[in-house]
């Protein structure tokens, strides 16, 4: 076996490992499931994905019962925050922050509350009538309901 052949075989091996790692990570990011949660007051029990995206972009000020919509998100530099940016906003974390800066600056919508931890997010949603938030798991917390999006409790 020549030195060149060994190099090619080693390269193939490492390339395969790198490829598997990349695919694995990619599947991880795209398949990580999110769940929409809300305070019992305000949000409906079910909604379409398009409605959820519209609400999370500040396009709705009040729920049908008149409660004010309050958006609660994980910070964009957290794992759940990053996935939320991709799946809900189809933007990078920086673009989402810029989007909200522009919107609140123009006075068209109130900026969301950004949280450091999932526990903090759950707590704010539970305490704020009309609050809606995004988690990376189905919540079992008290004072919280899970919204079915397109008929599913995660997406």
């Amino acid at each position, binding site marked *: 076996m020549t030195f060149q052949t060994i190099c090619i075989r080693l390269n193939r091996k490492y390339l395969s490992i790198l490829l598997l790692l990349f695919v694995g990570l990619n599947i991880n990011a795209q398949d990580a499931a999110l769940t929409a949660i809300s305070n019992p007051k305000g949000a409906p029990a079910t909604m379409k994905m398009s409605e959820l995206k519209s609400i999370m972009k500040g396009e*709705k000020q*009040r729920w049908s019962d008149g409660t*004010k919509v309050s958006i609660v998100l994980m910070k964009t530099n957290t794992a759940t925050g990053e996935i939320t940016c991709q799946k809900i906003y189809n933007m990078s974390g920086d*673009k989402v922050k*810029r989007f909200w800066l522009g919107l*609140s600056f123009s006075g068209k919508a*109130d900026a969301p509350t950004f949280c450091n931890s999932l526990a903090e997010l759950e707590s704010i949603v539970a305490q704020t009538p009309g609050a809606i938030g995004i988690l990376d798991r189905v919540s079992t917390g008290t004072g919280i309901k899970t919204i079915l999006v397109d008929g599913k409790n995660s997406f």
Partner: protein
Amino acid sequence: MPRLKSISIIGILLVLIGSSSGLYSQTTQIRGFADVMASLQKEKVSFALGEQDLFITSELSDRFSFLGESVFRFTNTTPTKFSVSIERIVIKYNVAGNHNILLGKHHTPINYWNDTYHHGRVLFPTIFRPLLFDANIIPLHTTGISLQGHNLGDMKFGYDLMVGNGIGSTDVLDNDKRKSITAAVHIKPVEGLRFGFSWYNDVITKGATAHDGMILDWTVNQNLFTGSIAYFGNKFEVLAEATAGTNKTDTTGSQHTMAAYIYAGFKIKEKIVPYLRFDNLHFGQGEIFYNKNNTTSIVTGIRYNLNYVTAVKLEYQHQHGEKEGDTDRLTMQLAIGF
């Protein structure tokens, strides 16, 4: 009697705030914007401070909110060489759903740029505003009352109906009985795309001071019609706006002015956007309200967004004005938010 009226209005406001507050905890945010520049013009390099903009929002209650924007900028006429201006004070009351009443000093919702970018230079697609702003074609501010609705129905229809002190007035007193009227509508049929149209009317009394300090010799009936198309997608950005203005007096008749610009940007990467902008101002031959100076300009530049609150722009502008001839300028700007 006027005093009784004022007390009644204040009383109603207090009742509204009280009834909508419940257990509401007030949330106040203070943000700001600033920018610095360096420019090369006529073989001379100059450094310049831009504006420092303080921006405050506060949710006063479940339905009441406040927005304030104050700007500190260079002014040659004050002892300190700086001045402070109140750019916006808006108290918003959410009536129902996406319908609001707004009171205070607003950026007149006459076109997309004036209603979107305000004084946050980091959010501007180019370094400087389009020429129609510098030429005072449109009234930038209106102090008054406004009805506003947005994202209504599948087409995401929006409207603004504003009544306020007209041109020549101050933020505390109208100079005549006539009020300015702004009516604007827009739709957002698909993500990132917005079509808008507006109409502005004011009767500006003889003797009033116009935007550029000119004292009017005639009473002017002004109508401004503005159309705009904005598309900000993942790859392309396009913003085109045109204002057709008619200034009519009993003695000089109607004079027509057209001001327009088109901006286009292409994201070669998410953070890097080369762009172009073309501006054109065309005034009627006997224009009496605006400072007649037919001008064209082309701007080419590149924007690099370091992060969501920091942007560097490098821009070259060639301008041809009827009065000043050709001018060229190369400008670099660092704009931040904080």
